[in-house]
């Protein structure tokens, strides 16, 4: 076992110990096919939680998106994102001649699954903010790839902004039924529908 594999195993174990990392597959079964998961974003912990909630054999081909400037700034960060999580790097500063979605398109063309947070930034107001257009463009370019909405619950209580030690609290990731871009669907309508699909997965305590 390589150091990166061991690290991945350790991180998944700790995440399960702290949060339970329960994956609830409501609308779609866990399946080894190419997918785009899109989820609400409340904490740095979100990606690790989704990743730990995935069955072990889906983890290798499911990749996160990482900001290049931040996640390659030290050797450890670069090792963690590149070797352990196999992240897709994007640059935050947009230069004129570069399409910011280019790395994502490349990853999808090579058959990998992606996890994206279409809000673009973390929010802790309960309801997710309006989605950015990236999801729409990916849906347009890859009509065959199922888009799976995911609601991540409780994570903001595990590690609020500014704290370093996580508190053990049960979290769930609920995976809903795939959505697709309807023919001729307006960009804004699609993004609003996608956001509603994520909110729909929120568990209700009865």
């Amino acid at each position, binding site marked *: 076992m390589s150091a990166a594999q061991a690290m991945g195993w350790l991180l998944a174990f700790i995440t399960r110990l702290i949060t339970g990392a*329960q994956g609830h597959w*409501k609308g779609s079964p866990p399946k080894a096919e190419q997918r785009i998961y899109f989820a609400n974003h409340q904490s740095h912990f979100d990606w690790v939680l989704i990743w730990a909630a995935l069955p072990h054999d889906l983890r290798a081909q499911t990749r996160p998106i990482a900001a290049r400037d931040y996640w390659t700034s030290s050797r450890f960060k670069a090792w963690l994102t590149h070797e352990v999580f196999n992240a897709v790097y994007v640059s935050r500063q947009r230069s004129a001649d570069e399409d910011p979605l280019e790395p994502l398109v490349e990853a999808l063309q090579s058959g990998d699954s992606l996890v994206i947070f279409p809000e673009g930034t973390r929010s802790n107001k309960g309801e997710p903010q309006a989605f950015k257009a990236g999801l729409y463009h990916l849906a347009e370019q890859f009509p065959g790839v199922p888009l799976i909405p995911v609601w991540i619950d409780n994570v903001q209580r595990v590690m*609020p902004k500014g704290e370093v*030690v996580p*508190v*053990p*609290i*049960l979290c*769930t990731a609920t995976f809903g039924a795939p959505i697709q871009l309807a023919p001729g669907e307006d960009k804004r309508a699609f993004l609003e529908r996608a956001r509603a699909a994520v909110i729909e997965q929120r568990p209700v305590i009865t």
Partner: protein
Amino acid sequence: MNWLAELTTNEQVSALFVTLFGALLLVTAVAVLLSVRDSSDARSERRARFRRDLRAVWVGAVVFWLAWISGATGATIVVGFFAFFALREFITLAHTRRGDHRSLILAFFIVLPLQFAFVGTRSFDLFSVFIPVYVFLAIPVVSALAGDPERFLERNAKIQWGIMVCVYGLSHLPALLLLQLPRYGERGAFLIFFLVIVAAGAQIVQELASRRLRRRPVARHIDRSFSYRAWAAGVAAAAVLGAALWWITPFDPMRAAAMAALAGGAGTLGDLVMRALKKDAGVRWWGNRSSVTGAVGLLDRVAPLCFAAPVFFHSVRWYFRVAG
């Protein structure tokens, strides 16, 4: 029972486990055979529930056995993890705020390990007062320093309660295993077995009695089945069970019955309190209902023990006036 008395302690405990697992195997075999025979829809709900309970008993028995073979340290660590999971479940449903973060870290990563360390080192005096005295002060101090006055008493009460029930209550299980009583030696495993059997017996009989008696519930908004008569039936059943099992305890039959009644009564009342807490949190049981994978509901299973174990432990200790 003479031949049993002649065995060494270790052999007696082994005999206990052989009996326990033998009985479980028998029950499981009968359950499997019955499930093959009838398949009416009306019974499937009850059967599913029974199967869930049976699985929980199996898990409990295996954990008990693992705790025994891994010795004092191992047993303490195993129960420590259970306390961790139970507290995690409790805190998940008690709505805490941002300002509670540090208090929760204190509870999970300092109080919990320390409490179990005191058990493992048999520091029973410190172990008895650590949480009710020292932690009782420490938690609100840490909370106050976080500077959030909103619902301060309520938030702190919830954390204190979680610690008392999940950590303090459960830590009495390994403590029973490690308690050394005069003329009883290292037979703590029998005391735990005794406690679990009488607490479970009281619970089951109370449940059955409430179904048969159909009395007016005392507190219908908390538990539709709880009535004084059903509760008394549960306590009486615990006493009878305790008297029947007196030979595995350090007591004579009368005292064994009294101890069992005490433990059974505390367990069933504790369960009632837990139901009230769940109603307050707005859930029917602690496990996540919508869960497809890994619904635990651990707190549901251990709640009666969380209350019965400290009462039983301190009664035993007081009875023998054992020091340290």
